[in-house]
């Protein structure tokens, strides 16, 4: 029995070893991402963006004359699995770099693995400030996405310009919701001392019935509300809030962070979307002030994904990969320490314009798109009006 089990073990181990030894010369990049379950709505397009980038760069000869091989793995939306996949990518597939993870639980968990294995890890989506907070920062973790400080403070900058003083907040009761709301409230109070936070609602993450929270908030009569309900949570919330006259009572003075203004959110609600509120998004396919690079990117993306109105998420994977390959080119090496050094302060020229990975906190100055939603007869879903990309540099801290 023991001999048998040992044989089974030994043969599968040998198989693993031989596979890892193949494919010399390519640069292997692990891409752990949510590819199944509800999170795949964002994870899948993010992977598409990274894949498109890789195909394009490989067609031009790759980096340092070597092709990139992207190895996507499904994290199933949980940190435990993300860790397992990341270690598997490093040990079995022998990837030299990792770009990926989606949730604020996955990012920090994989960061630990990156630190231990001295593998440069670029997080293209997780927003929690914890990921790059001084206590957790190490030479191998970088973030190309926005973070809760940038997002909360940008929302505060916008709300400060509204003629309102009584503010309410509603956010899911967990790390992301708490962090982004805190960033919003603190910054708003700092830049506009006349504001008063009249109400704060904390439904649990994944709440099915928002009615009590909506009614309680309406009772406090805020003039404007900051919402951090993201993705499908915002959809559920808005569908319940609309018939209760919530948006009307606020005069549409609601700003929804967590990509409430993304095409994914507006599309999934269609005509039910509370048109007139403010929201943010990582990308807009119809950016009026788009630089030629962005227009070109959207054309390529449409072709690559076969979508007439492409998703707003591929840009996250695309930019994450671009930071990596630009850094490799700058370092002229695949050595983790050299690439890490090259990434610090690196400015890339991406479809959204120029973007810099700050040396001090290894965080990109990635501002999102913000705007007021409106219906446009050209589309069966709400789009952002007067959409602007806000540069977060002045208030990133």
């Amino acid at each position, binding site marked *: 029995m*023991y001999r048998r089990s040992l044989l089974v073990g030994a043969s599968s181990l040998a198989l693993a070893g031989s596979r890892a030894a193949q494919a010399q010369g390519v640069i292997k990049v692990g891409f752990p991402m949510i590819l*199944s379950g509800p999170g795949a709505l964002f994870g899948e397009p993010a992977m598409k963006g990274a894949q498109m980038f890789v195909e394009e760069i490989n067609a031009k000869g790759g980096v340092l004359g070597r092709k990139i091989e992207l190895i996507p793995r499904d994290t199933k939306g949980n940190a*435990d699995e993300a860790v*397992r996949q990341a270690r598997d990518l490093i040990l*079995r597939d022998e990837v030299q770099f990792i770009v990926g993870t989606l949730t604020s*639980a996955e990012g*920090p968990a994989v960061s630990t*693995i990156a630190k*231990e294995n001295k593998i440069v890890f670029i997080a293209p989506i997780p927003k*929690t400030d914890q990921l790059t907070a001084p206590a957790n920062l190490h030479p191998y973790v970088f973030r190309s996405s926005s973070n809760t400080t940038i997002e909360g403070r940008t929302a505060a900058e916008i709300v400060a310009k509204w003629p309102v003083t009584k503010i309410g907040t509603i956010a899911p009761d967990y790390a992301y919701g708490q962090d982004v709301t805190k960033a919003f409230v603190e910054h708003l109070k700092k830049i506009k001392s006349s504001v008063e936070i009249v109400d704060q609602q904390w439904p649990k993450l994944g709440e099915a019935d928002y009615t009590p929270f909506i009614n309680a908030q309406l009772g406090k009569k805020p003039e404007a509300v900051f919402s951090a309900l993201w993705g499908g949570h915002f959809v559920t919330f808005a569908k319940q809030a609309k018939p209760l006259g919530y948006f009307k009572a606020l005069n549409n003075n609601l700003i929804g962070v967590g990509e409430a203004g993304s095409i994914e959110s507006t599309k999934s609600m269609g005509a039910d979307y509370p048109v007139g509120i403010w929201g943010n998004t990582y990308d807009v396919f119809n950016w009026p002030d788009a630089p030629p690079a962005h227009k070109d990117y959207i054309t390529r993306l449409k072709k690559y994904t076969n979508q007439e109105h492409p998703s707003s998420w591929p840009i996250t994977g695309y930019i994450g990969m671009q930071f990596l390959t630009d850094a490799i080119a700058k370092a002229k090496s695949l050595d983790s320490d050299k690439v890490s050094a090259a990434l610090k302060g690196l400015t890339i020229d991406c479809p959204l314009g120029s973007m810099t990975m700050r040396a001090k906190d290894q965080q990109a100055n990635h501002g999102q798109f913000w705007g007021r939603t409106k219906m446009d007869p050209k589309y069966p879903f709400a789009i952002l009006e007067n959409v602007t990309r806000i540069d977060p540099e002045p208030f990133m801290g």
Partner: protein
Amino acid sequence: MSRRPVPWVLVLFLVLLCIPWLGSRLYTFIATDIAILALFALSLNLLLGYTGLVSFGHAAYFGIGAYTTAILMKTYGVPFVVAFPAAGIVAAGFALVFGFFCVRLTKIYFAMLTLAFAQIVWAICFKWNDVTGGEQGMPNVPYPDLGWMSAIPGLGSLRSGDHFYLLVLALVAVAIAALRRIVASPYGRMLSVIRENPERAEFIGINVRLYQLSAFVVAGFFAGLAGGLFGIFNRGVFPDFAYWTKSAEVLIMTILGGMGHFWGPAVGAMVLTLLNQQITSYTEYWPLILGIILIVLLFGFRGGIVGAVVALNRRLRGR
């Protein structure tokens, strides 16, 4: 003619001890994973195979153990020597409380209640942000200080992952030896009597509930130890450690390997882990493969892998 039987277990242990010298981090990594999960599966089998109690919530004690060690080591800086046994003790404590209620029920009701308690544990881990880190879990659990191992001749050249593996292997071996001792003792026999016929056991004066509860606590203790090791190995603990899918996974390991044999669950843990590692790099449809394996197993080999091997062996010898 009496021949001394070959001490296979000792041979296996010595072989496993050599894995770090193969020089591959991957092999050491997989071996560590399997060793810990084998202990977890063996602890479940004390309930499943020996006492005849089907627990759907065994991951709760694994999770409690993992969080105990992680919180002690990361938040309070307690050394591993204390934090590791604490994992078993705290898990056993919870098993005592939960088990007290569970053993009052039988069969499917018992199974459902174990599941209910496990879900409560999961929910607490998920929500108690200040202590457990909430849904983000606790990344960055420190490695135990294994500097002393480098001082041992021959071990100095190994990496810290290899040192940890040797530690895990030694601790798991001791725990398994203890489990083996328990099931072979008169106490263990009593558990089997209860499994075979609880009414009859009651008639001959055995306090069935008390024995079941004690088995529940012992199983919880060893699951806690496995959890404590796994949290460090995984470099972080997460609420999913206590989720029902983890309970299902260990149940599958036990059944796959064969719950009728002491070593069955360990073999199950090994086979399932290796299969999972191999298959997930080819396909996203791991659950599909797992489902097929289970169906084949349940219809073809009721006794699991070890059961099938033993049966085959017997038939060959019979000829």
